[in-house]
């Protein structure tokens, strides 16, 4: 462990990380946000899920520094009288959880399909990659919207909202796997020709074992690189779906549904319900994007364009 840590300290990644103030700053912000999101039940002043502490008379209070603001609620309250700061913290926790879950799922599907496609080649490869192309051409957000709309109509709104978290993970996971499949396939194609794979085949290992045990560890680094950006994408997708009413319900708000509930009241001047969760969401996605850009430059400058 100690040895590994020392090797990491001498690595190029650590060296360029230290020298890049943007990377350091965005990593610190991301770390801070994730910590406060995970610790939400401990540090949040109120529990937004506890109906007994919510008073509807407190609804739509402005932030504490404004004239009508109350000192009990730093960022004001939302339309149901929940403390906005606490609700945001809990909301971000949900967003992070859904985002990471969805990325794990899409990485799993994508890696399996990418490995098979790259290793098998031929017809299997052609069919799988055509499917990925076609799905990508419909854009991941569109696919996610359509799947969630179908689910919502199929299950009914009430049941959908109860199962919203696992459903959202599945929806976003299924919608975005082609990115991983393509990346994994590309690096598998590069590895497949190498001698160690031939050697493994000569000693008679099964294709499954060669794929998972031998090729995958060497093909994994681009996967890690795109994972950062994919988390940002997943969080954005979740926010977009929740905003359209196809995601988290208002009773268990994520950042997106919080923005949505605030939007209905923006015409009456309650801007804070929309703005604060919005800023939090943007900062969260922005630091992940900045980190992802940096990581992409360091790990593999020729990975993909855009």
């Amino acid at each position, binding site marked *: 462990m100690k040895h590994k840590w020392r090797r990491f300290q001498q690595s190029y990644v650590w060296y360029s990380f230290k020298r890049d103030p943007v990377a350091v700053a965005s990593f610190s912000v991301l770390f801070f946000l994730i910590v406060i999101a995970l610790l939400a039940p401990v540090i949040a002043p109120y529990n937004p899920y506890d109906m007994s502490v919510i008073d509807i008379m407190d609804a739509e209070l402005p932030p504490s520094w404004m004239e009508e603001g109350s000192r009990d609620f730093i960022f004001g309250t939302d339309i149901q009288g929940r403390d906005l700061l606490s609700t945001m913290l809990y909301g971000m926790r949900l967003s992070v959880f859904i985002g990471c879950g969805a990325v794990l799922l899409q990485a799993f599907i994508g890696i399996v399909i990418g490995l098979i496609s790259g290793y098998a080649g031929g017809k299997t490869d052609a069919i799988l990659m055509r499917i990925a192309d076609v799905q990508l*051409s419909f854009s991941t957000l*569109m696919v996610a919207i359509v799947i969630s*709309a179908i689910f919502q*109509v199929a299950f009914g709104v009430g049941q959908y909202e109860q199962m919203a978290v696992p459903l959202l993970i599945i929806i976003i996971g299924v919608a975005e796997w082609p990115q991983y499949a393509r990346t994994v396939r590309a690096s598998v194609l590069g590895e497949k020709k190498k001698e160690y794979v031939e050697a493994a085949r000569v000693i008679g290992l099964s294709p499954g074992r060669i794929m998972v045990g031998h090729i995958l560890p060497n093909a994994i680094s681009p996967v890690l690189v795109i994972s950062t950006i994919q988390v940002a994408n997943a969080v954005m997708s979740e926010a*977009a779906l929740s905003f*359209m009413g196809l995601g988290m319900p208002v009773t268990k708000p994520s950042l997106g549904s919080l923005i949505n509930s605030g939007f209905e009241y923006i*015409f009456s001047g309650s801007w804070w319900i*929309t703005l604060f969760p919005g800023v939090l969401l*943007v900062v969260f996605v*922005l630091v992940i994007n900045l980190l992802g850009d940096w990581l992409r430059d360091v790990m593999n400058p020729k990975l993909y364009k855009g």
Partner: protein
Amino acid sequence: MFAFVVRRIAQAVFVMLVIGLIGFSIKQQIGDPVRDIVGVSVSVAEREALREQLGLNDPFLVQYGRFLKNALHGDLGHSFFFKKPCLDVILAKAPATIELVLVSSLMIVILSIPVGMYAAIYPRRWLSRIIMGMSIVGVSIPVFLTAILLIYLFSIQLNWLPSYGRGETVALWGWNSGFFTLDGLKHLILPSVALSSIMLPLFIRLIRSEMMEVLETEYVKFAWAKGLHRWRIWLLHAFKNTLLPVITVGGVQLGILIAFTILTETVFQWQGMGFMFLEAVERSDTSLLVAYIVFVGALFVVVNTVVDVIYGLVNPTVRITGRS
């Protein structure tokens, strides 16, 4: 080339069949046409008779075949809520969405090309750094948030622009256009700015990175060595080759733009297809939902096929690698 086009079209037809199959299975699983037609007081026996009459007891594939035949004749079913054929409802809403997409893509093209080129030609200037910094911030702001902030700033605080709806429209051969009235144009500004805000940074970054790569190539260096005028090199030599990848990505981005119209239209209560789609979901109007999926799916497939064929015309290597 001919073989390439044929193969591409065959693939498009196959994708449409799959989309039709998905749409049809949704209808089978969720929608109940009998419930849509009859009231509560109709007896079970009568329902069963109606079922038989409508052919709902036929095998799955027979019904699917009928669904495809009807779809080819432009019959995508009846909307439960609007009491009209779904295709009529969609076609009535389509102009609003198309106008929105048109204005946004125009804004994206007009702005992203010069800005992206500038950032590629002078990557070290402070203005380029600001552009790139802004673009990554722009990518990180969700389109609905941009839309809300625009409404808050320009409609509520400054009261300059209207916040929702399409305003006054003029009917031109059945096409309700907002292009010809001042009110309609005013209503177009905020939604199209919001819609283009998500794609503009992506295009700027794409054009910049492609152009920077092209500027490094040998033939551009040779053009410099020949002493050609810099504008000639930038526009005729470098930019022309930047366009190739931009066209392919552009086709895909159109799909993303249509997905984002759903978001933009919700915020601005824009009476287009996206708004209609979400309303259909809320009302469990399965026929309309399926019709939207099939319609938009067809739109995507046509656009992607056309883009691919154009790309095949411009870049012969695509045709050859596809053959393998």
